[in-house]
């Protein structure tokens, strides 16, 4: 065990985590020649394309220590387990479990960008778990690098010594050797007891079409072997360990896994929801006394309706969602129906990025054309009779006369930015009902703003707006804090007098009029003109608070159509027809699929 090092990488998006990981894998010859594709760890097509890590990954490297410190020189190679983690707030629970499985972390900071909010919050998480932090100043090769300044930030933040910061470049390979040495020298070996009852911490799971659900874990204590009966503590389910082993580029079976090591287990699990990140695996015969601390049921933060464009695709959509869930247990879904959209599902997502990813995967991997409605959060609705109803869909709200009060989730948000953007950011947060808790200078002119905010206000276009008003110089992170009572009301949208349930939203009473007006204006842009006039109205209960009119098409005619125009005209009309097919007929009005989501993208 003294030759094992378990570490993760903490980095803001684009600071070079994947590139540096590739260099580590190359230097340790974990990947060679033909397997050398850029960003080895991001193997999902979507991950490569977007340059983000969506799922956790783990990979083991063998490393022959080349340093000059006698106490680390050893005949045996070191076993380095790298746990790659997603870099987005949506997946912060998964990140926390990966961190809990490590003894050290590489803190990668882009020398031209400096420290970002996401980095800080993950860093705090790592410090809470007592991880040894190896600070790395990356992209040192960039002409715009500000090594001194960013090093100051790191030193300020960690209270470490300047000499501890390693200057590196994933591009040129500079400093990578030093990083490997530091991993051995500075990170302590795992502490567990191989003879104690078995405790493995699950930090991720993947679906394999032939082998079922495969769980990734770190053995915290104990030792286990293939063929033994194991139990997942939180779910209480028991399985036979068919195969266990370590994770290299592929899975490599082992006869034994013991304390300190990181690996996989295949045990014929069919349902992804049975493998919960944070759960503990133990032996059935000699179970551990306590589960590993920190297990939480991850709850969706955001809900949205997902509907097939063609009603008859409902069952296909269900099958696709089930398959997606195999890969992604954090996706929840439940059948629902909408007057406007027919049969579909109310899905729960970890956040907006997660929602986008699911939507994109439905499209790419399953060729499902869907309508996604405006997302909302979970509301606790208290009736006058004193019951509490959890509502995941604004149109499922009980009648207003039955409601005593409504609670909505709040978050604690951290925004790090440069001083010059504080003004506009504060205005933005105020508009989103944010309450400033604190304002701290992180270093130089970088400020951290802490806000309490309703989650419902940030699930939508908050992040995009933040990025645009700060010209990209603001980073954002949040954690759920509490449920709070709020004056929320339901805002309905009517098309030619027909309420469109899929467009209903819950909003704070003070924002309702402005929002109603802007939604009508936005829909006027999004809905194409039809053969008749279309009235768009926003209403609270029976009261109309805003209206826009889309004028009827009076003229849509091709004047000339002779020999040469026929092909051209046909192609044009065919294109229009395809567009039309992607519209949803609501009453007599044809509404484009994107309108349901974009209606709240207001400027």
């Amino acid at each position, binding site marked *: 065990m003294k030759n094992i090092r378990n570490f993760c990488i903490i980095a803001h998006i684009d600071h070079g985590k994947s590139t540096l990981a590739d260099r580590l894998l190359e230097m340790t010859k974990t990947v060679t020649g033909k397997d050398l594709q850029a960003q080895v760890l991001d193997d999902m097509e979507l991950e490569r394309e977007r340059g983000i890590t969506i799922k956790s990954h783990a990979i083991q490297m063998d490393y022959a220590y080349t340093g000059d410190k006698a106490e680390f020189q050893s005949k045996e190679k070191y076993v380095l387990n790298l746990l790659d983690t997603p870099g987005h707030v949506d997946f912060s629970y998964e990140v926390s479990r990966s961190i809990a499985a490590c003894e050290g972390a590489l803190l990668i900071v882009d020398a031209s960008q400096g420290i970002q909010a996401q980095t800080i919050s993950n860093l705090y998480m790592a410090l809470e778990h007592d991880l040894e932090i190896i600070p790395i100043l990356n992209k040192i090769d960039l002409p715009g690098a500000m090594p001194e300044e960013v090093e100051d930030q790191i030193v300020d933040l960690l209270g470490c010594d300047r000499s501890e910061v390693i200057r590196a470049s994933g591009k040129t390979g500079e400093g990578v050797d030093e990083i490997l040495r530091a991993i051995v020298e500075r990170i302590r070996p795992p502490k567990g007891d191989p003879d104690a009852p078995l405790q493995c911490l699950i930090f991720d799971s993947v679906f394999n079409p032939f082998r079922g659900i495969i769980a990734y874990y770190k053995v915290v204590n104990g030792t286990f072997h293939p063929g033994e009966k194991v139990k997942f503590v939180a779910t209480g389910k028991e399985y036979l360990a068919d195969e266990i082993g370590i994770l290299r580029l592929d899975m490599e079976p082992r006869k034994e896994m013991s304390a300190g090591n990181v690996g996989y287990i295949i045990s014929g699990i069919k349902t992804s929801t049975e493998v919960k990140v944070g759960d503990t695996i133990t032996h059935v015969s000699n179970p551990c006394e306590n589960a590993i601390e920190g297990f939480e049921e991850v709850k969706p933060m955001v809900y949205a309706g997902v509907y097939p464009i063609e009603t008859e695709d409902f069952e296909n959509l269900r099958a696709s969602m089930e398959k997606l869930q195999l890969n992604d247990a954090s996706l929840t879904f439940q059948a629902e129906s909408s007057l406007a959209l027919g049969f579909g599902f109310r899905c729960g997502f970890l956040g907006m990025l997660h929602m986008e990813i699911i939507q994109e995967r439905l499209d790419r991997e399953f060729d499902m054309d869907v309508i996604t409605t405006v997302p909302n959060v979970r509301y606790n609705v208290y009736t006058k009779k004193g019951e509490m109803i959890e509502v995941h869909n604004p149109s499922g709200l009980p009648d207003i006369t039955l409601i005593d009060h409504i609670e909505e989730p709040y978050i604690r948000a951290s925004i790090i930015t440069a001083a010059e953007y504080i003004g506009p950011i504060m205005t933005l947060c105020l508009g989103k009902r944010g309450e400033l808790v604190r304002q701290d200078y992180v270093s130089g002119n970088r400020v951290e703003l802490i806000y309490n905010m309703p989650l419902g206000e940030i699930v939508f276009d908050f992040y995009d707006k933040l990025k645009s008003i700060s010209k990209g110089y603001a980073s954002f992170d949040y954690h759920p804090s509490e449920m709070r009572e709020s004056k929320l009301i339901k805002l309905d949208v009517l098309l030619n007098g027909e309420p469109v349930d899929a467009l209903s939203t819950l909003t704070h009473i003070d924002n309702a009029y402005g929002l109603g007006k802007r939604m009508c204006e936005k829909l006027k842009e999004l809905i194409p003109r039809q*053969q008749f006039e279309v009235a768009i109205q926003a209403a609270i209960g029976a009261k109309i608070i805003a209206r826009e009119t889309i004028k009827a098409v*009076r*003229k849509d*005619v*091709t*004047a000339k*159509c002779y020999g040469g125009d026929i092909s051209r005209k*046909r192609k044009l009309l065919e294109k229009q027809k395809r567009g039309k097919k992607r519209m949803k007929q609501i009453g007599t009005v044809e509404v484009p699929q994107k309108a349901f989501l974009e209606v709240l993208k207001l400027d």
Partner: protein
Amino acid sequence: MAGLYIHIPLCTQRCSYCDFFSTTLLNKRVELIDALCKEMKMRAHYLPVDGNVLETIYIGGGTPSLLSSSEINILIDCALDSFPHVDTGKMEITMEANPNDLSDSNLKELSGTAINRLSIGCQSFNDTTLKIINRRHNAEEAKNAIANARKYGFNNISIDLIYGLPSQTIDSWKDDVATAIALKPNHISAYCLELHEGSLLTKKISKGELTEMDEADCLTCFKHLREATSASGYEHYEISNFAQKGFRSRHNSSYWHDIPYIGIGPAAHSYDGVSRQWNVSHLPKYLKAISENRLDTEIETLSVTEKYNDYILTALRTSDGIDFQYISNKFGTRFSDLAKEVAAKQQKDGNVEIIGEKCHLTEKGIFISDSIFTEFIVVEE
């Protein structure tokens, strides 16, 4: 039966609404005539044998009236030489002409050619409007051209008009229509302005220098046009075309009735009943290819669905409309069933009228015909 189209892509100046393929490279004329003749020989066997007898020739442009009568004779002789055809006396041979090319001397020469139909590009009888669209003739010349042509024995005359132009009003359009009818052309093509990407007019309108007529006014213009022409005995037989009895354009009708045609010249389109093809839209490239004994052309072979779509968007333009029996025979019942279903719904909305096995657009339907075609057509995933 079949039609031949010959494209003369030459203009002395560019009309501001035009996105047609034409060029002001007038010095290429001789080379062009040679190439057109050569292409006719090359395409001598293009048409299907069961439909290769020419009944119409249409010399369009561009501005064919820039050609001399001897050049025109060369082209027509070559055509009659290259393709089987009905008796020349029974053929419709049209040439497009710019009003100010129809002087006495020119007309005299033209009357000696085989051309028996003139399509005169009047566009408007209002000088302000003619200036704005950069035509090189004025209202007076337009009026004289028609009378003159008659004088020289042309008794099948069509004129082109445009409405919806900047500077036009409902009243000025009513004047244009009245002037046109008083001149008693046998045929009127009246187009509602389409703004094409890239035309000068589109640019000026998007810059705010000019304003187009609003949709409701265009519709009023259209309705007036229908009333006035019908009161004077014209039949509204295609969206933009009006004819005295017996004077429908036979050549253009073949486009709307799935009849094969050959297009000669740069950018010209041909259709052999199965595939469509079009020559390169570039005069030097066209000339080069022909000089090397090849055709620089793109071909599109039509699937059954595409043929059905073509049928919808051509046949439904005409007052005869579509024929469900024909659709069922030619494309299959899948298509005729669908067409009937869509037609029934459109009839409820007042956009089409169904009479037995046939269905045509109503006045209401015509002005939104593209959206109605979209309802009828089929796209494969």
